């Protein structure tokens, strides 16, 4: 049970990092919403 949960958590973390830091065009998708330029320290840029 611990192993399954751990694998799921790690996969979710990998997906989160990929979603935020791999350019959307690499997986042929256009991202909706924020996150396209990663996460800085409070920059409130209007996302293009």
């Amino acid at each position, binding site marked *: 049970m611990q192993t399954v949960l751990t694998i799921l958590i790690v996969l979710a*973390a*990998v997906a989160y990092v990929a979603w935020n830091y791999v350019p959307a065009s690499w997986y042929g998708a256009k991202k909706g919403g924020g996150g396209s330029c*990663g*996460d*800085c*320290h409070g*920059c409130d840029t209007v996302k293009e």
Partner: protein
Amino acid sequence: MTEAITAILPERIALLGNPNCGKTALFNLLTGSRQKVANYAGVTVERKEGTLHTAEGRHVTVLDLPGAYSLNALSGDEAVTREVITGQRDTLPELLVCVADATNLRLHLRLVLEARALGLPMVVVLNKMDRVKKLGLTIDRAALERELGVPVVGAVSVQAHGARELQAFLDRPLAPHRPPTWKNATAETVRATQYEAHRIFKLAVQEPAVDADPSAKIDRAIMHPVWGFVILAIVLFATFMAVFSLGDVLNGYIEDAFGWLAGLVETHMADGLLRGLLVEGIIGGIGGVIVFLPQILILFLFILALEDSGYLPRAAFLLDQPMSKAGLSGRSFIPLLSSFACAIPGIMATRTISDPRDRLATILIAPLMACSARIPVYTLIIAALFPGEPLAAALTMVGLYALGVVCAMAVAWVMKRGHRSRSTLLMELPSYQWPDLRSLAIGLWERAMIFLRRVGTIILALTIVMWALYTIPSPRAQTGASELENSLAGEIGHALQHVFAPIGFNAHISIALVPGMAAREVVVSALGTAYAMEGDEDQVGAQLEARIATGWSTATKLSLLIWMVFAPQCLSTFIIVRRETNSWKQMWLMGGYLFALAYLASLITYHMASWLTA
């Protein structure tokens, strides 16, 4: 052929005004937003949008525009303002809310007159009315309304109910109007507008016989060519002294809390992978970063108080001369100052720089300013270098910040050789004021939330990935090596050692630098995870600093500090440089020169320190 617009009640309004007249504070008050405000010009460089509810319950869209001294735009941010209110960008607003600093109408009336000439429905908001009385000014609002031919309302944008008059006005129907017409002003029109502003000012404003504003007296010391720099150095030193001495006390409690949490998980959970992830990965890694929250908040408390007081633009003015020696103008100061929080808003703020060469040089040196993400790394290593010595720690921290600034000036000088800045710094110096406690509290709360949000999202995700890499065994496991050395992370770290061993970095440091490209603080959490896995699980809360203090040589500690000053910043900085310069070449130029500078400086530091401490 133009068509008349016959909107009865405004549904889209734009806040327009000179820099530092309080537009963003008014925007926040009207919409409940928490956009950044400060007591100096150039904070807003993009348009912001929010929604307000009028007294009658209607929804109105509010646009907060960058400050502009004139609609004859000189810089990129002023051009944004003109394009929005002339309908060249976005939908045309139905009402212009022209915000003017009531204590400085002599200057602000000119923009009011330029905006009025557009022909859109308009209301003038006299902001900072609370200070009018204090300064002994008398404003005849009826005379202003009569001369300007538009309604005039008062406001105090830093008070909870300071925009009541404006909110009531928004429920009044507007007269029909035609789309605005805009053409660049000639010298004659500019002169005529200036004369008209002066005439209206004389009619409507009565100034006191004696100036009640103490700013000029204070400036005699603060802006003194010698004492001014001494005061600036004292302010910086006091800030970092507070960061180390007060921060150290507070983060001891956080360390204890994480140690207790790790013990709790170990007591109540059977041994297994998930327990390892929780204790060594999440508590060991995240705890190592959260522990620096007090230091970050203390630093920002000082920065916010200095911003709010009106000191920072004076510092910009003082630094104009040294910056001009490097070929930059004082206009670069605010973008560079913003970069101390994060390079991204700093790079965006370069839009206020009208000279393209100055702007590019400022963009390329902005990452050399020590962003707040570096604070945990600096603090951790400095604390390991000088345990229990806050004075030496504060001086080292000032030194690291100064090193970044001096090298930035040197790089700017190289970039601008033969092309010295021709633009002069014209900056409006705001009056001094006591920092508003409510604004400080909101600013600190925002800062804490930004940090904790980062910790709870990207830093947490990367720490979990790092833990997994340290846990998954490498297919090329070697007999006799430790479990960590035989992990995937160990394998990657070993490969990176070919590059980083000459500058004194061990495998743990080398691999921590990779996720550090996404968020600098992950360097600390990745080291926290690695040492938690290597060490005793009982000491997860407090062992990172001790392991670094005893396990790394002084030369390695110094080399990593120097690396953190110069190394290319996070990926987000690369992306924003690409976007703002519209050039891949400039982006790679920045990354390349920063990497070369970091490697060379760390190499020299490591070998010199090794030789001196041998």
